[in-house]
């Protein structure tokens, strides 16, 4: 049983609302995680190509914050945090327009109090939001939430080789030029310039040609960046809509945005901080894979770092669950030394140019994944696996049932990770639920 209670003053409320608005551009529901010193709102989009996270500092952001959880909760035995998911539209409607509603000074919101009532013995879980307005008016909203295990995308900042930082207003100027129908945004340095170009991957002909989105390219000087450390002519492409959503929010906080990435087809992170709020977005990139990028892991090595052959996978995969190769990676990486725990989620996503990935986590068609893995290859970027999710399998299943998405994305690594000692003893695609009883996960 967990209790969570916090208050927001009007300015924090406005920024909280802003964060929810931004999250709403990525997903229908928001994941809420509470810990002793922070609250995290996150969302993963349906195609799992974009993950957004807002981390609120308990002391700096909230005017009051308290959280407690009873340890040894049978549902959540090893956790010191509480997590749940809420339908975003419902949550947004509570905040909609209210934070900025100052037409009537008398009844303007003076404080917003949020209480989470987690009572396992009752059927209903409730999040109670109270708006304390002037003249003693109190507006209360009771929302239902769903208790789920949260999926996080992990981005290893230490491994990113390319990085730039720029004031958000400059990026805001750039996105103004892109049309609404623009699809992909390619970012690359060219001499002393940085270029942002939109393109489409759709092939059209005949009369349809005229319906193609306008290709826009905006070139700015590298001097506009606070720092710019990007491999020359390295192209990475991300979704324009995601980029716009992020920039619009970033600009509202007036923060400087930092982008970090390694290379195309690996995740790119956009991050910025503002007054007790840390905003991080992990986006799937696409682009021309440059094998001579000085990666240190040549293609051969890359391709060999793959799970065992397919037949094993098929035999171990329940017929109802079409599990892509991802669990194998998760299992593998969970066995890595702690130093590597926060490995990037971007492994195995290398592929030929402009392949359309549906997911941050699952390559749609990467033939090399069937090759012999290189077990010694520690340089390989890795996926993380939250050990707590092993036991929370039922939670994951229930969520999958809900979303209809059967791949198991990475979960955050905060717990013990050394459970699996022999990473290859178990065919990697086997579900965690199936291998209980072997003594490894009990």
């Amino acid at each position: 049983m967990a209790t969570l209670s916090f208050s927001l003053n009007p300015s924090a409320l406005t920024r909280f609302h802003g964060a929810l608005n931004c999250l709403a551009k990525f997903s229908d529901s928001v994941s809420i995680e509470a810990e002793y010193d922070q609250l995290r709102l996150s969302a993963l989009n349906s195609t799992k190509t974009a993950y957004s996270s807002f981390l609120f500092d308990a002391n700096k952001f909230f005017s009051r914050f308290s959280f407690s959880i009873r340890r040894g909760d049978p549902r959540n035995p090893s956790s010191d945090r509480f997590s749940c998911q809420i339908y975003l539209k419902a949550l947004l409607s509570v905040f909609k327009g209210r934070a900025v509603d100052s037409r009537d000074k008398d009844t303007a919101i003076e404080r917003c109090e949020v209480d989470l009532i987690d009572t396992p013995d009752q059927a209903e879980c409730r999040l109670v939001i109270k708006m304390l307005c002037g003249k003693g008016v109190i507006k209360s909203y009771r929302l239902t939430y769903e208790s789920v295990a949260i999926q996080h995308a992990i981005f290893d900042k230490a491994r990113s080789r390319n990085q730039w930082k720029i004031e958000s207003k400059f990026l805001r100027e750039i996105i103004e030029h892109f049309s609404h129908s623009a699809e992909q945004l390619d970012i690359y340095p060219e001499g002393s310039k940085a270029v942002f170009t939109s393109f489409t991957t759709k092939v059209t002909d005949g009369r349809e040609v005229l319906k193609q989105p306008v290709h826009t390219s905006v070139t700015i000087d590298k001097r506009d960046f606070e720092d710019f450390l990007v491999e020359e002519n390295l192209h990475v492409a991300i979704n324009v809509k995601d980029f716009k959503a992020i920039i619009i929010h970033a600009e509202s906080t007036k923060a400087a945005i930092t982008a970090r990435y390694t290379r195309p087809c690996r995740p790119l992170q956009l991050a910025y901080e503002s007054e007790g709020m840390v905003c991080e977005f992990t986006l799937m990139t696409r682009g021309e894979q440059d094998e001579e990028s000085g990666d240190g892991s040549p293609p051969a090595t890359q391709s060999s770092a793959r799970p065992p052959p397919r037949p094993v996978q098929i035999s171990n995969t329940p017929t109802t669950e079409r599990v892509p190769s991802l669990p194998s990676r998760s299992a593998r990486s969970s066995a890595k030394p702690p130093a590597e725990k926060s490995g990037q989620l971007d492994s195995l996503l290398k592929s030929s140019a402009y392949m359309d990935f549906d997911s941050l986590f699952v390559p749609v068609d990467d033939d090399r994944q069937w090759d012999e893995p290189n077990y010694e290859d520690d340089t390989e970027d890795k996926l993380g696996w939250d050990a707590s999710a092993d036991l929370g399998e039922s939670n994951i299943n229930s969520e999958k049932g809900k979303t209809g998405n059967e791949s198991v994305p990475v979960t955050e690594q905060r717990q013990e990770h050394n459970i699996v000692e022999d990473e290859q003893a178990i065919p990697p695609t086997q579900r965690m639920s199936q291998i209980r009883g072997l003594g490894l996960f009990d």
Partner: protein
Amino acid sequence: MRFRSQLANVSTFAKFTASLSSLGKICWMRLEEEVVRFTVIPDQGTQVWAQLPIDTIFDNTYTVQSATGVINLEVPIGALSKALRSATGATSAQLRLTKNGVVPLLALTVVASSWTAGDNALGIQQSNQVLSPAGPGEDRPTQPAPVGGPRERETVITQEIPVKVLHQSVVEGLHEPRCRDPDVHIILPGLVQLKAISDRFTKLATNTASGERSSSCPKLELSANMHGSLKLAIAADTLRISSVWTGLVNPPLDPGQLSQTEIDQLPSERMRALGTEGNGDEEAGWAKVRIDGKDWGRVLSVGRLSPKVVACFIHETALILYVYLRGSWAGEDSCLTYYINSYSP
């Protein structure tokens, strides 16, 4: 086949394309030696045929080269209009015909410059806020780090609009509509006011009619006489409203083109004579058309160019608007011609 030019008058061009794009998605753009023609022929609604002397929107860098001396393009006019928005306030803007693979493109290249705010308005340097130079590993010649203060930023924006090159044979069959001489010609009042009232009327009629036949858009009745009066009216089951302007100008026709006897025989002179009885307000002297309210609203979006508009009424048949851009009144070279059909009562 080559076309390129610097844009001389971005805001006019942007407004012009925005007006056209309200009527249709595709525009036929015909680049000639002396003029550029834009034609929008939607499946339904008003046609517009426009011609601009090249110096209205282009400068002396205007170059058109092709076998026939003419380039015909099919342009998504909305996309062109949006792209031109990037060019407002730009230092320079160039439009040219190019290719990406097999897809011909109109490429708009805009150079915009602005000043960084610097750290403060006075440009006093603050040591703790330094715009650091770009990182190492970059081949730019080292220049002193622009520290703190305001600095000119340059942004280059390229907008590539997919177009289709039309063969001469495709456009040969397209002709401007021919109409008989108008019954009434009159200079319209300010389009801001006219549009506001028209839109208001349309909205009123739409809302009241929503119960029965919401599918059909309300029809405005527009009529004018040769004695400086224009009437805008709408009639629905539950309301009947009208607005009348008086003291407008019925422009004289160019005596250079027609002899006096020819002028006297024009329908408009007959209408002028008919209207003279009863203080110029005689019913017979009015020419009337019935037009689609929403379509009319889209036509009037040309008001953003603040042009001078001559409306020619052909009684119960059609309304033709000659829209002259500001400053070109004397030459009458830049002209948009709108052909609006009248609906039968």
